């Protein structure tokens, strides 16, 4: 069902126009890449402070209250440009192993943020000025950097066709993980 919906989505007028456009598609992708500096960049600065290896003398709340709104702006641009890129070739990304890995890491990254704000952030008054924040905050920072690094890596590798469904044979686990619909070959 998802397959046929995405097939239809990719055949719509604007999807075809976008993927075939000479300038618009590269512009959307460039926006997606350059905005990394704003989104992941400011997130990493905050993570370094949470881990306790940078910015001694700058309270953690300075990052969370004043820099994080800009991280959110970056995230909005990333999502908007990312959705457009997905819309340009839905089925291709849906069946792309790196895209799926990226999506999974995005979800875990979101969970990490939610856990941080719903638990650790609540007690910030007690550790705001501490050079080394509590263990849970440091872990959140480490997970965040690891996950965003993974997202950037797998995002970049989406463009390479090492595990493309169209290029068979692929190892069984690849076909399974990428959701490739491979025609059974008679034994």
């Amino acid at each position, binding site marked *: 069902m998802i397959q046929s919906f995405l097939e239809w989505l990719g055949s719509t007028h604007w999807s075809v126009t976008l993927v075939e456009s000479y300038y618009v598609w*590269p512009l959307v*992708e*460039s926006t997606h*890449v*350059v905005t*990394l*500096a*704003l989104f*992941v*960049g*400011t*997130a*990493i*600065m905050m993570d*370094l402070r949470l881990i306790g290896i*940078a*910015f*001694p*003398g*700058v*309270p953690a709340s*300075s*990052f969370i209250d*004043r*820099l994080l709104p*800009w991280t959110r702006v970056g995230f909005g641009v990333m999502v908007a440009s990312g959705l457009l890129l997905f819309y340009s070739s839905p089925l291709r990304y849906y069946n792309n192993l790196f895209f799926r890995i990226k999506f999974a890491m995005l979800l875990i990254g979101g969970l990490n943020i939610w856990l941080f704000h719903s638990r650790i952030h609540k007690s910030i008054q007690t550790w705001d000025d501490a050079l080394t924040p509590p263990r849970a905050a440091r872990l959140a920072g480490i997970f965040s950097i690891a996950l*965003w*690094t993974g997202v*950037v*890596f797998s995002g*970049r*590798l989406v*463009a*390479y066709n*090492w595990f493309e469904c169209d290029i068979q044979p692929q190892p069984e686990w690849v076909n399974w993980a990428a959701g490739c619909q491979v025609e059974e070959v008679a034994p």
Partner: protein
Amino acid sequence: MPPESWIVFFEWCEATALGTAVRNSMYAFPLIEATHLVALCVMGGALIMVDLRLLGVGMTDQEAGKLARLVRPWLVGAIVVMLSTGVLLFLSEAIKCFYNTSFWVKMMTLPMALTFTFIVRDRQIMNGVPSRMRGRMLGSTSLVLWFVVAAAGRWIGYS
């Protein structure tokens, strides 16, 4: 565009052992590219947090000079990774770069951006608090210069 005679140097670059090794490997170029991007994030974050502060937004409870001083090791570290991965990518496709307008835009603006950041912006803000007007000029110039470097860098791949 540079004089055609420079092509000899670019051909030499492409023939180096490093350039050849990256070009002949299926995985090297994409992985170096991805590392280049992660370093872009660290470098961009380190620049943007100071530039936003200079524009009068972001971490306004801190002095810009203090932020610039504290972020300096991360900025320099990220730039070192950017340059070394960038050189590797370049060596693997030097001749393509020679005929690529985006590459030359990047090579012109990158030294400008580096000079501006370390010799103009950081020197001024580390030696005292700049006026509001001057801060805005420094922050916006930095953002524009680095934006062109990053966008031109991405655009090398489209031609």
